[in-house]
Each structure stands twice: as structure tokens, then as C-alpha cells.
């Protein structure tokens, strides 16, 4: 079996952050693998283009001078901003306590303890990751993810989409307090969408992560284990007979079957 490098490897290579031996190994692999050679060429081109554009932009930024009229406008706008600023600030800012209270209230929506029926669910037309992204972007509502049952082959897409969703700021990774439990284990963090709905949470398992995914109505949709290379596989121990899915709240109340 050929072990293809992962995307991080190619990026590290073009960033020049790999050691000579690792870089040589990757280039040797790319030389004999059409798909990897194409991937490397694509990211090299994009990296080079980014450098060219970045330098051009930085160089072109020198020497311009705003007009005195603009100076006056900016300073006047700043003075205007200050008059309404503090009051708005007080209205908009949410304290951590308020956030956790909101999160806890929303987490209560997940209190229904259900058996995970992943093997029995039909699988939807689109990748689960895409559905998750859509739900996260739209704020989510019950039923939107009803056809989003993931298959094992979609695991990589799930992992990638979760990664993108966090990186893009579409969902946030919330840490303490643990918002959910699975089989008595405390979650390490949860993906919470912009409306405060929990979409997934993580468990550390032997140096890897388990990602447990929820539908819009709060029911578990499946679980994947993601190794350190970013590969996702269905969690082998989780099946309808052994998994008692999720309860919610910091205290992780007793698990119940449904």
C-alpha cells in the first residue's frame, strides 16, 4: 500500500518548514505519483502567486498620501464614533457567563438520550460535511440534517469540512465546561454554530480524536475517529448495541436508553 503524503505535508514542503530528508522523501514520492505531483504543482503555484501578489502589494503601498480633507474626515468620524460607542458596547457585549448560560440552555435541547442508529440510517445525497457547513452557515434548524447520515467513506470529507468550518470561523470550538458526554466520557470541546447550537463535539481517545456529529434536531448522526494524519474512520466500538449516545450539561447526567 502506498502511503500518500497528506495536504499538510505539501504545504510544509512549499513553506520550507520540512527538514532536508523529509523534503527529499516527498519530492521523490511526487516524482513517481501523478496525483501527488499535480497536488504539489498546484500548491507550489499558489504559494508562488501569493508571494508575488503580497510583495507587489507591499511595494505598491508606499508613497501615497491622503489629502488633508480625508484627514479631517477620519478624525471627525472618530470623534463621532466615541459618542455612541460605550453604550453600544455595553448592549452588545456578552459576558462569558451569559454565553455559557446560553450554551447550557441550548445544550439542554440535546438532553434526549438516544441510541445511535447510524448503521440503520439511510445515507443522504450529499456529503455530511457539506450539510454541516450549510447548517452552520444558516444557523441551523431541526430537520436540515435529516439526510446527512455519514458513511465511512465520507469520513475524510467530514474531517475536512469540520476543519474548514473552524478555520473559517463559521463555527467555533468551545472548550470548558464540557457540554456533553458520551458513554460517561466527558467531551473535550464542542462545535457550536452561530446560534449556539452544538453540532459536534470531540473526545480525546488514545492520542486521536473522536468527532460526534449531531443533526439539526440534536440527535446524534454518527461518530468518527480522526487520527493524527487527519484520516477519519467510523468509530469501531460505536454501534446501536453498545453506544448510549449523548446527554448534555456540565454534570453529564445519567445515561438513559430510548
Amino acid at each position: 500500500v502506498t502511503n500518500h503524503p497528506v495536504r499538510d505535508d505539501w504545504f510544509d514542503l512549499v513553506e520550507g518548514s520540512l527538514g532536508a530528508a523529509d523534503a527529499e522523501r516527498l519530492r521523490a514520492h511526487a516524482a513517481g505519483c501523478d496525483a501527488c505531483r499535480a497536488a504539489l504543482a498546484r500548491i507550489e503555484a499558489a504559494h508562488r502567486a501569493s508571494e508575488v501578489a503580497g510583495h507587489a502589494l507591499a511595494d505598491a503601498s508606499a508613497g501615497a498620501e491622503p489629502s488633508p480633507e480625508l484627514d479631517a474626515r477620519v478624525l471627525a468620524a472618530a470623534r463621532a464614533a466615541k459618542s455612541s460607542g460605550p453604550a453600544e458596547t455595553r448592549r452588545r457585549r456578552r459576558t462569558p457567563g451569559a454565553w455559557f448560560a446560553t450554551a447550557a440552555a441550548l445544550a439542554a435541547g440535546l438532553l434526549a438520550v438516544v441510541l445511535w442508529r447510524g448503521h440503520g440510517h439511510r445515507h443522504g445525497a450529499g456529503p455530511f460535511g457539506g450539510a454541516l457547513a450549510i447548517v452552520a452557515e444558516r444557523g441551523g434548524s431541526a430537520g436540515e440534517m435529516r439526510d446527512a447520515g455519514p458513511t465511512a467513506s465520507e469520513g475524510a470529507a467530514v474531517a475536512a469540512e469540520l476543519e474548514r468550518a473552524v478555520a473559517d470561523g463559521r463555527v467555533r470550538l468551545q472548550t470548558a465546561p464540557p457540554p456533553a458526554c458520551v458513554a460517561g466520557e466527558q467531551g473535550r470541546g464542542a462545535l457550536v454554530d452561530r446560534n449556539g447550537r452544538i453540532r459536534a463535539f470531540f473526545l480525546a481517545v488514545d492520542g486521536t480524536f473522536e468527532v460526534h456529529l449531531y443533526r439539526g434536531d440534536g440527535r446524534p448522526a454518527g461518530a468518527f475517529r480522526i487520527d493524527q494524519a487527519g484520516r477519519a474512520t467510523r468509530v469501531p466500538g460505536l454501534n446501536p448495541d453498545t453506544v448510549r449516545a449523548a446527554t448534555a450539561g456540565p454534570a453529564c447526567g445519567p445515561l438513559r436508553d430510548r
Partner: protein
Amino acid sequence: MTQARPPVEALVPLANRSDEELMARWVESRRAGRPDDAAFETLYRRHRSATYGRVSAVLGAHAAHADDLVQETWTEVASAEAWTPRSFRAWVHTIATRKALDRIARSDVRTAASDEPRRDGEGGEGRTLLERIPSGAAGPEHDAHTRGVARIVLQIVAGFPDAQKDAWILRFVEGAQFHEIAAQQQVPLGTAKTRVRLAVEALGEALEQRGLSTLREAS
């Protein structure tokens, strides 16, 4: 009884204070209801040319929008609700760049046809636009071509999510290291790196779709 002297810190002139100190002072003074206009104006005077230049450079032929975007940038600075220690310079430049990119992404500002770089088979001797930029070369043709590459890259980057866009700006325009991007965006190092990687990957796909990414010489 001796009169209480002001703390030494208060005697340091504004001109001798760091950007970050001035920004903290501005935010705190606003919060206290006594805005320190002098602190804000000192910041603005230091960075006015750079932010104006950056916005103008991104907008290219559409620099008429520069005044509005510079004002928007500094209004965002003035309205900041909090300030956490990081590079003020990189922060304000990123805001200015992002606003200009957002303007590019909108339908009312499009890249002028003359800005577009030539593609393969359009006089480029079968090479890609990237290959036709010799490192260290100079001259009008080189400059024009570089501007063309930059223009098309900026158009693509303009469509990225804000977090990725900012990470890309910090990495490739501001020249920040990943740990500096993480500090600037207040995210873990891995997240900062992922944001840059995703931006580069997305750029690669977009360039490929436009037929601009092949690095091989045409036979």
C-alpha cells in the same frame, strides 16, 4: 505636605509611546467616557500614509474608492470595543487590506481588462504567467506583468472567508510568521497555519480553473 506627583508613566509624551500603548489608551479612555483624542490622532498620523497606500494599491485603477475605505478602516479602529496585545500595525493594515479586497469582490469594482495577465498562448512563449516573472528582474514589462498576477490573485483572495483572508494577508503581505498570525488572530498556532493552508489551496484550485497554474514549460 508634598503635592502628589503624577506617575512617571503619565509624563511620557504620546509621540514616544508605542502604537499598542496608544491603542490601549484610546480604548480605555473611551470606555471611561473621556476619549483621548490626542492618542487616536497620534496613531492616525503615524499610519495614515501606509493605510491609504495599502488601500490604493489593492484597488488599483479604482483608487477613487480609497478615501471612503480609509475612513471606514479608521472608524473601525476608533470603534474598537477592546484591545488585546498584538501588533497594531499589522492589525490596521489587515483591516484596510480586507476592506479593499471586499470592495473588489463587490460588483461595482471589477478588474480592468488591461490589468489581466496574459495567459498561455498570448505571447508568453508557452509559459504560465508565474513563470514569466523572472526573479530579481525589473523593467516596465516585468512590473506590468507582476501587477497583473497580483491583480488576479487579489480578486480570488477577495472571495475567501474573512478569517482565511486575514490569515493570507498577514502571511503574504505583512510577512508574518505563523506564530505571529496566531497571536494576531488570537487562535491556536495550528488554526492559524490551517487558515493559511486552506487559503493557498483554494487559490491553487482557482488558478487551475483559470488555466494559470501549470508550472511546466509548454513543449
